[in-house]
């Protein structure tokens, strides 16, 4: 089953392409940079995301947390615990044993990541 990102509207960037519906009634810890709305990039980030060794599993037995980083931003994808394997993805602190690898990955640019894929 294909994993997918649940990119909440309020984690998306506000900027030149802001669709204008971004005010949330929830208080969020982070927002994504504008370049993270690139669907090819999101797909690539999810495909090569690392399962958190200390992350456990969700209620369906799937990895609960996945990490990746690019362009100076660490992204966390947390399972939404739904039958379809959705992951709520947002910028987060590297609170994981994978911190060293994430620091290395964060130094890549978006273009470098996409080039690696192709």
């Amino acid at each position: 089953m294909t994993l997918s990102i649940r990119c909440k509207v309020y984690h998306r960037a506000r900027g030149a392409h802001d669709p204008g519906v971004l005010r949330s009634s929830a208080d969020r810890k982070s927002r994504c940079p504008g370049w993270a709305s690139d669907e090819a990039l999101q797909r690539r980030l999810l495909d090569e995301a690392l399962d958190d060794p200390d992350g456990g599993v969700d209620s369906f037995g799937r990895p609960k947390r996945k990490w990746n980083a690019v362009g100076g931003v660490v992204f966390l994808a947390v399972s939404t615990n739904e039958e379809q394997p959705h992951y709520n993805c947002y910028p987060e602190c590297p609170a994981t044993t994978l911190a060293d690898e994430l620091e290395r990955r964060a130094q890549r640019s978006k273009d470098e990541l996409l080039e690696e894929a192709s």
Partner: protein
Amino acid sequence: MTTGALRFELEASKAPMDEDLSEAERATFARLQISLAGTPLTRVVSTGGEPRDWVRGPMSGLAEWIVEQWVWLLWEAHTPFPKSLLGGKRAIPGLHDASRFWPDVDAQTVRDRGALGRWQLRHTLGVGASDLALPSISFLPEDRMIGVFVAEQAAALDPTVDFVAYEQEPAWLGADDLREVLANFTRDVLELATENGAVRWSNWLGELWAAQQAKEADPRERTRAALGEFAAARWDEASATLGPDAEALRGLLLDAPTIEDEAAWSNYVASVHRVSARQMGADAGLRALAPVSLASGSAPFRQGQQMAASFREELGNRDRPIDLRQTFEQIRLEWQAVDAPAFRSAVVRSQSGAGCVYFDRELGVAPRRFALAAALGRLLGARSDRPFGAAHGASSRYRESQRANAFAAELLLPAAALRGRGESDLDVLCDDFGISRSAASWQIKNRGGARDALRG
């Protein structure tokens, strides 16, 4: 702020229909107010809005974090960073530090960033589990007390709200108090989820929650989290050998870096056993000292200064240089030099009343005097006759080592001795009182009256 009650107040709130929420998130949508000693930590300023004392959003992720980290956040005492110094100041890393890969942590001291990341995950509220905006609140468990460190939020993540309040000094809560607050919150979130139809999620987390609570109540699991796998695997055998004095070993291990090899383990056990095996005749054990009444709400360094002043009163020496050898003999406390790369000094008191201070044989004269005095401070700070052990070094328990450092500085260079002395006397003071320049400067800085006296 050194003591105070932590409160989590939850109020269900209708989830907006236009937000892309999972079933569990929608069912647990609520307002949350977190306060510490009456200060709302969730006081926020949002864009274009008035300040308010709560945050709003899904609580499911936060409840999952509490369940997942339950044993660690209540018991894991060892940290992968030195507690004594972080970026030139005493601090515990928070979200702001983590979001920048902990730039203030000395890479030579902490080589494993992964260990830092795992510590942050286990001890910082909601991190790695919830996208709800929360202040940076980290829990540092040290035996029966838990330090609550409120730090700067991770502005680099571009949160939707700014938290107004954070403290430089930690608050300290009883472990039972924190357990109750977080357990009540988790129970309330589970009930909210069930009421609002997220039954599957609620049942799943409820089962995990029951298992985690049972695990946390197990003394073996507590020992494993507090002292590490290596020590926990050998704990029963050491307990059987040392009997009640195993309590002293436990104190040493709480203050030591995590033990990971047999040689270090044997040294710690032997250091307790050596004291434990001594036969004490009548009148041969540690001399009983008049208990010092410490104000429970006062800062640890104030308590240390108060303890030292009382101790000097008892010795009949208010402001003269102190002879530590004579002082230790007076209270029948032995000392012994050891090879001790993990600590500067350590103290053990057995059930029978024997006591010994171990110190690092590599220390110079003034640092050795300070280390001996700090170990004495740890012993006096215990304020009971039970078996006791403590080590004084970079991994020592935060609050106790703050108190012991202040005790040592005041014992060696009492504020009373600074009156009428000028700043130009600093070298003479250091020579006369057997204290290093850095410790003397630290003492002067922390003693307002003393600083004024030096200026005069």
